[in-house]
């Protein structure tokens, strides 16, 4: 775990600056980001494949900045952006022969690396992958392995590297890390990683069952609007910075053509949810269905982006 290549300072030795404007306005409720979209509205996704010529497949993905961020950028009031938008790049190398020392494999051996750029999050990340990045790598591997037809490429390896240039926040920056300090932003990052990696795999012309796409849904209790006893509401594609309290969230990797989930990661208390009348689903089922809907939305972008880059190559030749 230790970084053996660099001499790092003692951990926790530095702290982010505290701004005077913050102290005056309390928690600064006026600058707090608010969700402008409908609960089922998804953010726009920018996705392009084939940007890195040296890789056999690559893609770049960007989420649309939230309305508050866009407003803050056009008319800056504070030094600190109210939220962040996901930006990540994915490269695929392979299929290439396995190293000599590796044992025989009848299938394509998949390796995934997820790395935050040091400047990706509000808090600086080290150069060595930490446990959350490794965790993301395992999730991504699970998601992709179900989609790839591995036996078409025996004895070969495929390296997938995702670099996160700008990560999603886990909460609104002004909130202290409190009871909902769980890393909700990581789930959005994972959904982005899945969609981007899927596009890059298609760009590398690896056989897969379907373009697998990632989607996030969350149960949110914004007690600012209603009485505190109100039940959490289901929202698709949540930006954690826009919500006061996320109760539970779920990310799926989903293949629409087969209606199958290759990766599911759900956490938080999903026992209470305000559902429409006659909706018999329990909280976690509603959550999974919501995430699947979000993934379906991402899939349309994904398919379009892959098609676009193919048409471009056709036009060139």
């Amino acid at each position, binding site marked *: 775990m230790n970084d053996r290549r660099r001499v790092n300072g003692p951990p926790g030795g530095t702290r982010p600056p505290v701004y005077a404007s913050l102290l005056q306005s309390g928690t600064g409720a006026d600058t707090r980001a608010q969700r402008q979209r409908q609960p089922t509205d998804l953010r726009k996704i920018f996705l392009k494949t084939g940007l890195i010529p040296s890789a056999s497949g690559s893609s770049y993905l960007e989420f649309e900045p939230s309305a508050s961020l866009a407003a803050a950028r056009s008319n800056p009031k504070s030094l600190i952006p109210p939220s962040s938008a996901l930006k990540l790049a994915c490269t695929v190398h392979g299929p290439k022969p*396995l190293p000599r020392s590796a044992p025989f494999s009848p299938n394509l051996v998949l390796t995934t690396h997820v790395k935050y750029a040091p400047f990706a999050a509000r808090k600086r990340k080290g150069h060595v992958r930490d446990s959350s990045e490794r965790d993301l790598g395992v999730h991504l591997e*699970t998601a992709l392995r179900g989609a790839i037809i591995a036996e078409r490429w025996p004895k070969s390896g495929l390296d997938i590297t995702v670099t996160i240039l700008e990560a999603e926040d886990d909460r609104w920056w002004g909130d202290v890390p409190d009871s909902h*300090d*769980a890393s909700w932003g990581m789930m959005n990052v994972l959904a982005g990683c899945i969609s981007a990696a899927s596009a890059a795999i298609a760009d590398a012309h690896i056989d897969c069952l379907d373009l697998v796409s990632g989607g996030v849904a969350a149960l949110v209790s914004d007690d600012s609007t209603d009485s505190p006893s109100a039940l959490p509401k289901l929202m698709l594609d949540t930006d954690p910075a826009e919500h006061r309290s996320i109760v539970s969230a779920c990310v799926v990797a*989903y293949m629409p053509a087969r209606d199958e989930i290759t990766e599911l990661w759900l956490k938080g208390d999903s026992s209470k949810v305000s559902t429409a009348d006659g909706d018999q689903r329990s909280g976690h089922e509603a959550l999974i269905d919501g995430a699947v809907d979000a993934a379906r939305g991402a899939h349309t972008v994904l398919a379009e982006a892959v098609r676009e880059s193919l048409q471009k190559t056709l036009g060139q030749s």
Partner: protein
Amino acid sequence: MSNQRQASSASQTPHLSPAELSYLYTSLSLPKSPIRPDGRSPTQFRPLTAESNILPGTNGSARIGFADGTQAIVGVKAEVEKTVLSTDTLASSEGGEGEDSTSTSNSAAASGHGSWVQMSIEIPGFRDDDALPVFLSEMMRESLVGSVADGGSDGGGDGGGDGDVTMAGGLKGRLVINKRWHWRLYIDVLLLSQPLSYPLPLLSLTTHLALLSTKLPKLKSQGEEDPFFDDDWEVAEYLYPRSSNLKAAGNASQYVRPPVTLLVVSVGENIIFDPSREEIAVADAVLAISVTRDTEAGNLKLLSIRTVDPPSRLTQPAVPNSENVNMLGATAPTEDIAVLNPATGEEEVPGVWRPRRGGVKRSVIANMVKTVLKKGGVGEEVLEGLEGVEVE
């Protein structure tokens, strides 16, 4: 080497021959009554031996051993740490306008922080930064710190005074001593031998037991002064209050309990608990489901679900007799009729193993979760069983 290590679940599987895989799969997917290689029923766990409070140098500890000889030891240590004050606390201490009393309980100083619980897993044969230990510890930690009792309805539990009985804010809230100090919990999990099957159930059950037996020394200081403690171990309080601690003999279901993570696999239409290594090797889907007791409703509550990469995707396919070059002319080619497997939606020749591909249907996931959560189901029985293990 690192390439192989990365494959978290794959490195766990033995190389099984396609014939074995096919035999196992067919046995386990027999409708209604799967035949497990060791004769267990689908929901039956392997018997295990358990004891807690075995390490005197810890605040709580436990050991669980399976009959196959794999053992896990968990030690829980608690240390006092100074809480880093955040901007919010600074703000509220300076003027705090517009902050009503309930929202102060939102601050880190009162409701705790997930990073105060630190978990490390040591598995022989794996480096501490290999994918498997990292994945396992994240999985177990996330359900542990996530198990917040509903903060909104419980209101303020700001302080150590009554927190140890109601446990507002879950484990994290319990770790708060006062606004400036908190407990830091180190949970160290040690697996004594290389795991013979996916070690999650063993580790999770042992951690649960260790946390149940964990005691924190009684606080003697009051309010916001620097904390000091009673050195009498007899009066120390349980981290998770136990029924014997209270005069009002209540039902155990009223207490907050540490979560337990169960490994569930689906094979065909069957749902199987506590799978052995061979059983995981042929599973269509593998889920790790964390549950705990819902203190209000008295039933079980879902905390997290994670998919685990089923190793069956990386297995060697069998060659149907009709395509086997060594059998040319030996069998009539029309013999093999592909049959649709309802569980995977793929055409398969009976008796011929195919590596699994694709994912899992939503209905299967819902079914697996339901089996865990349902009243009198496996989850409740496991929690009851663990509750029954004597502390000391």
